[in-house]
């Protein structure tokens, strides 16, 4: 039991080891490679996102720059192709304005001429700003000192966001400015409709963090400006930064400088949004890894279980084979022993025969001498004769025993000849009588007279009957009992029955009694070959052997032996001289 438990434990331990090793060797590289690939993918994707934003920013910067340059160019063209007098003339200016609007689809909201003092001396547009004073305005202060100027977006006198472009010229040594208001909406549209992903949008800020376009979502430009300043990013033409907003979300900012660094176009997108595809891919990858790992684990467990089971079965088989081998080798040894014992018995029998022969001859000689006249007067003559007779009788008894022992011990002669079952059974009974006597077993025989012979090997049939009788005696040796041997004719067969009153054979074992090496006796007491050999011998001559038994009641073996066709009685068999050779036969030459 303990051995079984220890075995189970060792198989469990082996199972665990196998599973762990396989899982480790299968999953670890998978995980390592997956993590490595994912990380590389993340880096590469991030670069892709950044590049995309950068490219987008660059593209839109180009558009905006082009827009601004175009507007500036238009005003410069106007200023350079018309004189101060012409442009200062209201009706002329109006005309020019209409032309401008016609040409550029009302991008220009209005135009005006501002003198060196900051007074708008001529104005064309919808706001009636003729005569407006801009002396103290920021834009005028910058515009009057620059050849051209683009202002930030501001509300100004009109109260609506707009920005202006100015060109400075001189007239009679004094500067004057041609000013045009650009439609904010047109400008704003360049940026406002820009979308990136789900959360990405763009806006333009100036260096002070003031919006130059309308952002579509809430933006805190001051923090961004501060961040850019802190990281010296305002000097760079382009940069990409990641910051956390108030909601705790990370936001990407792609910043591109416009208008010589005065403005910056900002492309903003939630980090999560920018990496949506990556995150989805990552999730799918994790899912695949998890499913794959679960699959590996499941396969590992199933295969390991099967492997351990096979090992266990193979071990069991090996154990069974080893046990059977052990039994077989024991049985082979026993068989060998039996053969050796047989040879030994033959040798002993032969050696005993000679001294017995001498002993009998000496007794016979004494008997001869006693017949002489001088010994006839002896008082003890009767006693002498009695003693001599006893010596003779016992000597003959030894002779009988050794002859039967020799007969049994000699090698099997499988030549088929006529065998008279009764005489063979008598011989067996004689051989077994001593053992039966010591085992308190009565032997009863009922042999029909004049049974015809069977065609068989005498030694083989001797082996069959002796085996059955020995088995019967074994079954009764502890308790004693009755052994009954019967032989009778039934149609063309001789039926021999060997019945004992021993412990019987269990019903479950009955079907196996004729199997080779099957025995219920301990090793050394039985080879398991006896009945299978009997079965083989009987079958060989066309007969049959069956067994009936009841546990606790006894067992009967019944053998059916076909009569030798052509011989009917022992006399006829003897006449034909084809019968067995008696040991002291006279053969006429």
């Amino acid at each position: 039991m303990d051995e079984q438990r220890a075995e189970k434990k060792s198989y469990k331990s082996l199972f665990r080891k196998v599973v762990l090793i396989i899982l480790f060797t299968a999953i670890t590289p998978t995980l390592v490679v997956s993590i490595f690939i994912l990380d590389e993918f993340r880096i590469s994707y991030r670069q892709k996102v950044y590049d995309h934003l950068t490219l987008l920013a660059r593209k839109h910067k180009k558009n905006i720059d082009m827009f601004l340059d175009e507007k500036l160019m238009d005003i410069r063209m106007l200023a350079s192709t018309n004189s101060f007098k012409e442009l200062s003339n209201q009706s002329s200016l109006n005309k020019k304005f209409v032309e401008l609007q016609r040409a550029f689809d009302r991008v220009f909201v209005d135009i005006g001429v501002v003198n060196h003092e900051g007074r708008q001396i001529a104005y064309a547009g919808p706001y009636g700003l003729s005569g407006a004073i801009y002396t103290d305005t920021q834009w005028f202060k910058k515009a009057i000192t620059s050849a051209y100027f683009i202002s930030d977006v501001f509300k100004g006198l009109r109260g609506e966001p707009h920005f202006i472009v100015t060109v400075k010229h001189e007239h009679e040594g004094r500067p004057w400015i041609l000013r045009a208001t650009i439609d904010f909406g047109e400008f704003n549209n360049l940026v406002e409709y820009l979308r990136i992903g789900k959360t990405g949008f763009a806006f333009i800020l100036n260096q002070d963090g003031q919006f130059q376009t309308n952002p579509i979502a809430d933006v805190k430009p001051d923090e961004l400006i501060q961040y850019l300043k802190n990281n010296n990013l305002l000097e760079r033409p382009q940069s990409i930064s990641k910051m956390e907003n108030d909601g705790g979300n990370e936001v990407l900012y792609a910043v591109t400088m416009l208008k010589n660094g005065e403005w910056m176009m900002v492309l903003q997108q939630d980090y999560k949004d920018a990496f949506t595809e990556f995150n989805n891919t990552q999730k799918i990858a994790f899912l695949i890894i998890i499913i794959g790992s679960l699959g590996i684990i499941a396969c590992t467990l199933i295969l390991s279980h099967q492997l351990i089971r096979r090992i266990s079965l193979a071990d069991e088989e090996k154990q069974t084979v080893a046990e059977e081998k052990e039994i077989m080798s024991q049985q082979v040894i026993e068989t060998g022993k039996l053969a050796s014992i047989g040879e030994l018995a033959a040798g002993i029998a032969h050696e005993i025969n000679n001294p017995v022969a001498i002993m009998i001859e000496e007794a016979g000689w004494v008997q001869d001498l006693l017949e002489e006249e001088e010994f006839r007067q002896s008082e003890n003559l009767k006693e002498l004769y009695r003693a001599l007779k006893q010596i003779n009788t016992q000597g003959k008894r030894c002779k009988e025993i050794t002859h039967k022992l020799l007969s049994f011990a000699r090698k099997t002669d499988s030549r088929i000849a006529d065998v008279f079952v009764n005489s063979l059974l008598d011989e067996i009974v004689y051989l077994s009588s001593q053992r039966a006597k010591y085992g308190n077993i009565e032997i009863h025989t009922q042999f029909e007279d004049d049974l015809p012979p069977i065609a068989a090997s005498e030694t083989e049939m001797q082996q069959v009957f002796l085996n059955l009788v020995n088995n019967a005696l074994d079954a009764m040796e502890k308790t004693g009992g009755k052994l009954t041997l019967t032989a009778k004719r039934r149609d063309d067969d001789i039926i021999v029955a060997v019945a004992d009153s021993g412990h019987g054979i269990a019903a479950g074992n009955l079907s196996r009694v004729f199997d080779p090496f099957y025995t219920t006796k301990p090793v050394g007491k039985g080879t398991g070959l006896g009945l299978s050999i009997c079965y083989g011998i009987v079958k060989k001559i066309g007969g049959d052997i069956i067994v009936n038994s009841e546990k606790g009641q006894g067992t009967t073996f019944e053998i059916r032996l076909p009569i030798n066709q052509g011989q009917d009685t022992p006399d006829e068999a003897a006449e034909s001289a084809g019968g067995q050779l008696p040991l002291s036969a006279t053969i006429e030459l």
Partner: protein
Amino acid sequence: MSIAKVLLTDDEKPFVETMIKRLEKRDLEMAAAYNGQDALDRLSEDSTIEVVILDIKMPVMGGMAALKEIKSKYPLVEVIMLTGHATVETGIEGMKMGAFDYLMKPCDMDQLLAKVEEAAQRKRKHEQKIMDARLKEITLRKP
């Protein structure tokens, strides 16, 4: 007058001595040999031996070899095989080689005596036949 002259051949000396005494008491003229070669030597010295009782298992030369030699050199001498280890095969083999009969030790004295007498009679019968045939031959040759 003795019934026959018999050579008893066996390696067991006590057996030979007692057997000889018993057979001599029964009017047999006996001689002894203790192995096959010994038996052949006695036969070459004494042509009056009519029957040989021959054991099978003997040293120097065994019974079967001796039987073969005897039948080859002295075909009229009858041989009765005597052994403690009888098998059908040895019996048949002996018969094939010309033995008169085959007995197991220890054998019944009367049975042995009867066999010896039979064997001696057969030997004499054959001898007579040969004698008669020779005489006839001589008679026919005479002019």
